[in-house]
């Protein structure tokens, strides 16, 4: 199941990325190779003959919209640096410039992470007066960008997953599990077990009250309630083993086993789960403790009800190991 979901996520990403990129190519979203008409004004006329000049680029909103077929509007003017050689002119925008839609994406995909200065080739440079020129800006072509994005996103997520998510969890997890281990060693589970035992009796009518299975189940559920997962699993497995000794049909689950599992799916969480504290921080966890109590209590209640009610359905009653065996005995006595 998980295998399919995981692979599905990746395959879906690929299909989506490919569709978007092909669509972009078909619609010519980035106008690869075409020149965007702009007006360039020199900041000071004295600079005109220098190879590198500080300029302002004015993009006419109407021209921008019709050029890229979008509704976004560029800023009034952008500061930039114009560099001229004998046969070539290049314009560079500062790294902190904010661009409207397709241009922002062109910037992100044509510049490296550590140098976000968008560059454009300047074509058809025409002087109108000493400080004003018209020109066409040609940006580097953008192709299969979403495909590159998903690969990049996977690499960044993998790196951040360890450095920014997992490793910072260690401290809080170590501290919280250390504290709860003290409680465990001090016999807190045993103490709470006394409270849990009487509640369990009516839920497991097939299990004799003094059977060891009852003890292990009480331990298991208490460990779960206190969020001591490390103590919960071994006691849970032990409880299953003991329940199995009461099971007349070894390959089929008894009602008691189903009840134990249903109570496991969402058992009341008294202490905040260590992972939530580690991921969300103590303040946020504090806020969330109440909804966690209520939601887990409701889940536990519904689980118990579901286990009981489904057990009464004829289909499941017929497969009940205890009932099947009882039925067989009845037939045996009738035969005699």
């Amino acid at each position, binding site marked *: 199941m998980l295998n399919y979901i995981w692979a599905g996520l990746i395959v879906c990403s690929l299909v989506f990325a490919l569709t978007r990129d092909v669509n972009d190519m078909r619609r010519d979203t980035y106008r690869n190779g075409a020149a965007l008409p702009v007006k360039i004004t020199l900041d000071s006329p004295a600079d005109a003959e220098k190879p590198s000049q500080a300029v302002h680029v004015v993009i006419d909103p109407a021209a921008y919209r019709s050029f890229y077929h979008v509704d976004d509007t560029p800023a009034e003017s952008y500061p930039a640096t114009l560099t001229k050689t004998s046969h070539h002119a290049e314009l560079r925008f500062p790294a902190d410039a904010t661009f409207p839609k397709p241009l922002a994406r062109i910037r992100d995909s044509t510049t490296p992470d550590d140098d976000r200065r968008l560059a454009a080739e300047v074509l058809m440079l025409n002087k109108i007066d000493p400080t004003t020129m018209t020109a066409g800006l040609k940006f580097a072509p953008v192709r299969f960008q979403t495909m590159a994005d998903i690969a990049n996103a996977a690499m960044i997520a993998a790196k951040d997953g360890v450095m920014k998510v997992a490793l910072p969890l260690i401290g809080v997890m170590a501290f919280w599990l250390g504290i709860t281990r003290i409680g465990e060693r001090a016999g807190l589970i045993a103490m709470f077990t006394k409270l849990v035992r009487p509640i369990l009796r009516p839920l497991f009518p097939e299990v004799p009250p003094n059977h060891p299975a009852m003890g292990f189940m009480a331990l298991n559920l208490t460990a779960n309630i206190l969020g001591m997962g490390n103590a919960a699993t071994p006691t849970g497995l032990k409880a299953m083993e003991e329940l199995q000794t009461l099971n007349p049909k070894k390959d089929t689950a008894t009602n008691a086993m189903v009840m134990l599992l249903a109570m496991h799916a969402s058992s009341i969480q008294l202490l905040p789960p260590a992972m939530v504290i580690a991921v969300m921080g103590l303040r946020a966890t504090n806020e969330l*403790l109440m909804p966690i109590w209520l939601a887990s209590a409701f889940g536990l209640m519904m689980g118990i009800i579901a286990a009981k009610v489904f057990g009464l359905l004829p289909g499941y009653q017929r497969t009940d190991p205890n009932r099947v065996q009882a039925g067989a005995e009845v037939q045996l006595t009738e035969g005699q």
Partner: protein
Amino acid sequence: METIRAVVQVLSTVVIVAVIVGFPFYGILKRVPVYEAFVEGGKEGFQIVIRIIPYMVGILAAMAMFRASGAMDFLIEGLRPLLRIVAIPPEIIPMAITRPLTSAGSIGVLSDMIKTYGTSSTFVKMAAVIFGSSETTFYVIAVYFGSVNVTKVRHAVAAGLVAEGAAIISSIYLVKFMYS
């Protein structure tokens, strides 16, 4: 509502402080070597995190790809009109799907959501409550029944999913009611 929230706030602070201070104190009274017990538990906390790293990286990378490709937005916007009827935000769906399947993976989903929406967003609170109030039902069923070679699990999956579903859905509505 405001008073309830204040009471809850105080109550949960008391619980957490009671654990942090009370456990070592109670341990000393019971003559438990508290520091040794703490270190022993701490080692396990360390190992748990190290153990879940590959699972988390797998889910985080797949989720990041899914988001970057635009498929996540498509899924969320596609589900929105459907889920509006029951007043459930579609942003929470990835968590609701992963939680019964994998514990480490759902931590990955939670951290992905924190990165996207921020810790104080309602979606992240919902996801954290879902994480805290339910279990990896499928995994538990597989391990527990597997350990005693029971293959016919009868209504265990159905009952487990009812419990899990109840916890997940009530988590969503509770957070919605209490924090938005």
